[in-house]
């Protein structure tokens, strides 16, 4: 990725340019010390004078009133604020009329910023004051008073906090007067510029120590640049929070959000005092010290999927390269490319007006799907790349494209749209009051049947939608977690009913939860801690992540729901020190994981291919093949995965083989005993019990009317009170419960203290002979009920008899 800069031959301003601001993707306002406000139209390349300010007004900062405020969705912002050196700020209309000038500070007003909903303006002055103003320019409050000038100011993502530098310190101050102020020393020199991105919640700072730094919103340092030759005079986040730009003397830099630099330009600009990204995030404008305004386009973005490499060569052109045969295709677009995504054999590109869907020739990428298109593979790829599907966008401000196997999601303006690859609009899920402009790949996740979203207003909630209907799942209540959720991801394989969501919370613990909750509340199960980044495989339900500096693969995360003890055996871990500090998983395609290190280099690694194959076998119910494969591979993880999958799918014979292979003898025995159970219900109940779901097990048995078995279940789990309760309620086997209780107490040499038992023990005679006879009768009854099922000889009908 790099910047393509353009500078005019002669500067349009006669003196230095101090500030710039975009109104739309193609229109920029700039003003400088020559008191002129110029309008730059990039479509026709014209520059026109909007207004000339009075000679004693030296503008310092400019900020447009945010558009898309409230119900007024469409339309451009029509007002901006200019702060000036005479201690005033001016509200100026788009046509250049000065609507209002307000005396704000003594000394110059160094910065002015609207909050995200346009209800307040914050100004920072040379006198060290931070002041909050209403939209019309009435003073609301003086937020802070400092002994040093404040050079820059930025709003927090929720417009509830303000970030500003004082000297070498950075300060985050909430608007609420009593809330805690966060303050830390950030630089070795005076800090000149700060910026805070609402999408990724990261903070940028730059100072006279010639460094720029990235912080999170708790003030932890994420990146610190090397020292430059000149002070860094400007920093600015791209709207989507993936990139930022850095300006200095004769220097313009494009950096990734993790801090490393994509590209460096050395244009002849003098110091770049201010940088602003266009609204669609495709270009950045800079106010130069020599009177120029520099424009820089981000080009040469790169997308990779399997054997295809896509590069944005120009603003309106892409190059697709098939690395297998070196075939190159050029894709041309009518408008500027804003966003693109390449996954699952489809390239989705959004321009300012339209959406293009290209399809690569590789259509089938699962192991066992029939491949009728084998012949097609030999066809030139060009045929596919040259016939895109094109449809018009609803709003034309796509901020995010997410893809899954069957559809893709566009976040376009204020709404989300789910399209099929044929270009059909499937659904448009809605959360009332959600700010869609700050959604990113960590806060939205898409799978074939489900969409998950996390809202900024309450970060503990995860909203779940049915992808096809766009309606909330289940009872419509969002999934609630104990603490704030940071990252969410839906698994991609398997049937919709088993859809799982993995999420990482603020403590960096990794949880997994079912998405479709049937009946009762399904708990989220913790399967990892200190997880920094995670990704599901694009096809099978394999999860990988970096867990406390170790690269970890959960080959079958669902194991947490069937046999939690087995979880460590289904995980493969390897040392992740080669990925250095805080790496990010970029993609997980097939069994190839791509990780971006914090210095920006990509590292590829392969995981074992077998678990994915087993996943596919199980989806196709090919148990014998799966067992054969495991025997061939002879790996504990594959066997453990197979065991868990067999339990999930209630295939007991496979489970027995698998558990035996990993040496879990106790479980093999239990499975054997389950296999011998007389009725289907009992078996189901014991499988549930095996997975630790006691209540489900009991419910199944009771539903089948097997009262004695339910009581026995409780006795076996030493759940005495419940056993007695059941017995009394159904007026049967009270003596059995009492007899077992007695035996248990005798074994432990204890006396009965439980009042209820004492009370019932009075009226009941314990006679083991009678009890045995009754139990035998119950078992016969159960066997008769289930006589339709060929069960073979079974001596023990319930493991309880082993007592």
């Amino acid at each position, binding site marked *: 990725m790099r910047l393509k800069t353009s500078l005019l031959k002669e500067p349009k301003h006669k003196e230095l340019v101090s500030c710039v601001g975009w109104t739309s993707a193609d229109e920029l306002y700039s003003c400088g010390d020559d008191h002129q406000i110029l309008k730059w139209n990039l479509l026709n390349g014209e520059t026109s004078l909007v207004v000339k300010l009075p000679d004693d007004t030296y503008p310092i900062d400019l900020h447009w009133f945010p558009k898309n405020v409230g119900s007024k969705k469409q339309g451009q912002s029509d007002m901006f604020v200019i702060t000036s050196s005479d201690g005033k700020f001016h509200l100026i209309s788009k046509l250049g009329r000065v609507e209002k000038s307000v005396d704000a500070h003594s000394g110059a007003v160094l910065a002015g910023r609207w909050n995200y909903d346009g209800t307040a303006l914050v100004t920072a002055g040379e006198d060290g004051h931070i002041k909050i103003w209403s939209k019309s320019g009435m003073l609301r409050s003086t937020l802070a008073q400092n002994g040093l000038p404040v050079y820059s100011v930025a709003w927090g993502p929720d417009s509830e906090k303000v970030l500003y530098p004082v000297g070498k310190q950075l300060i985050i101050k909430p608007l609420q007067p009593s809330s805690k102020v966060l303050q830390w020393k950030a630089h070795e020199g005076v800090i000149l510029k700060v910026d805070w991105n609402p999408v990724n919640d990261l903070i940028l700072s730059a100072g006279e120590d010639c460094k720029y730094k990235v912080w999170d919103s708790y003030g932890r340092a994420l990146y610190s640049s090397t020292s430059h030759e000149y002070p860094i005079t400007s920093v600015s986040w791209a709207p989507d929070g993936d990139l930022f730009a850095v300006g200095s003397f*004769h*220097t313009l830099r494009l950096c990734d959000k993790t801090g490393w630099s994509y590209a*460096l330009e*050395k244009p002849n600009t003098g110091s770049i005092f201010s940088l602003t990204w266009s609204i669609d995030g495709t270009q950045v404008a800079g106010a130069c010290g020599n009177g120029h305004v520099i424009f820089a386009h981000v080009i040469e973005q790169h997308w990779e999927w399997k054997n295809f490499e896509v590069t944005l060569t120009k603003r309106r052109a892409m190059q697709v390269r098939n690395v297998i045969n070196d075939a190159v295709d050029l894709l041309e677009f009518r408008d500027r490319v804003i966003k693109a995504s390449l996954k699952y054999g489809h390239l989705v590109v959004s321009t300012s007006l339209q959406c293009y869907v290209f399809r690569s020739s590789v259509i089938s990428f699962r192991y066992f799907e029939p491949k009728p298109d084998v012949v097609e593979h030999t066809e030139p790829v060009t045929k596919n790349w040259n016939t895109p599907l094109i449809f018009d966008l609803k709003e034309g401000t796509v901020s995010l494209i997410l893809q899954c196997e069957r559809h893709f999601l566009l976040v376009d303006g204020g709404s989300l749209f789910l399209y099929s690859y044929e270009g059909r609009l499937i659904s448009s899920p809605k959360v009332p009051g959600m700010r869609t402009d700050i959604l990113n790949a960590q806060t939205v996740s898409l799978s074939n049947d489900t969409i998950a979203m996390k809202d900024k207003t309450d970060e503990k909630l995860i909203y779940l939608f049915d992808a096809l209907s766009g309606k909330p799942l289940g009872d419509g209540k969002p999934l609630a977690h104990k603490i704030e959720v940071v990252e969410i991801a839906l698994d991609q394989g398997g049937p919709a009913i088993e859809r799982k969501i993995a999420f990482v919370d603020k403590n960096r613990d990794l949880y997994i939860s079912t998405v479709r909750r049937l009946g009762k509340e399904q708990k989220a199960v913790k399967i990892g801690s200190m997880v920094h980044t995670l990704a599901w495989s694009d096809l099978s339900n394999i999860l990988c992540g970096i867990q406390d500096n170790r690269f970890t693969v959960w080959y079958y995360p669902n194991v947490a729901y069937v046999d939690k003890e087995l979880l460590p055996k289904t995980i493969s871990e390897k040392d992740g020190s080669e990925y250095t500090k805080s790496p990010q998983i970029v993609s997980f395609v097939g069994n190839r994981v791509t990780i971006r290190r914090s*210095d*920006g280099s*990509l590292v*590829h690694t*392969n995981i074992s291919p077998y678990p994915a194959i087993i996943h596919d076998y199980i989806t196709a119910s090919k148990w014998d093949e799966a067992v054969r494969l495991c025997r061939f591979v002879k790996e504990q993880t594959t066997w453990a995965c197979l065991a868990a999958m067999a339990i999930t799918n209630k295939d007991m014979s496979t489970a027995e083989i698998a558990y035996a292979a990993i040496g879990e003898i106790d479980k093999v025995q239990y499975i054997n005993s389950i296999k011998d159970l007389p009725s289907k219900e009992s078996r189901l109940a014991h499988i549930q019990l095996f997975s630790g779901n006691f209540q489900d097990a009991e419910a199944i048995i009771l539903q089948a009317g097997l009262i004695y078995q339910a009581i026995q279940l409780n006795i076996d789990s030493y759940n005495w009170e419940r056993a007695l309760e059941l017995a009394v309620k159904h007026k049967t086997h009270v003596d059995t419960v009492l007899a077992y209780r007695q035996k248990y107490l005798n074994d432990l040499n204890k006396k009965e203290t439980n009042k209820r038992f004492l009370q019932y023990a009075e009226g009941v005679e314990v006679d083991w002979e009678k009890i045995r006879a009754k139990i035998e009768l119950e078992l016969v009854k159960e066997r008769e009920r289930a006589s339709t099922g060929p069960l073979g000889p079974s001596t023990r009908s319930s493991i309880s008899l082993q007592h």
Partner: protein
Amino acid sequence: MAKDSLSEAGLHFDDLNKLRILDPDVSQQTTELKEECREFVEKIDDFQKIVGGLIELVDQLAKETENEKMKAIGARNLLKSIAKQREAQQQQLQALIAEKKMQLERYRIEYEALCKVEAEQNEFIDQFILQK
């Protein structure tokens, strides 16, 4: 004697016996002086002309020298500034080189990772073939 008396009266006869008020010798000398003076004036004029030419020439030379001097100073300054410019340019290029080096390092790491993946896959294939 008459001559003397005449001469006393301030009258003289010249060779052609014409009466003269001035002593012919003196007259002759005067004429000679006049002649000489004329010559002298002429010579002086010539000299002035020559000197003027010389001054003009020297002036011109001075001007040219001055020009050259200015040029030299300019050139020297330019040279100095070029050195500085080169330094700045060098700095810029060095920054760009550092950037490229970093990119190269990233590519090297990626290449190494890919080599490792390739080795792993080859090993996997070998193993697979052997086991079959």
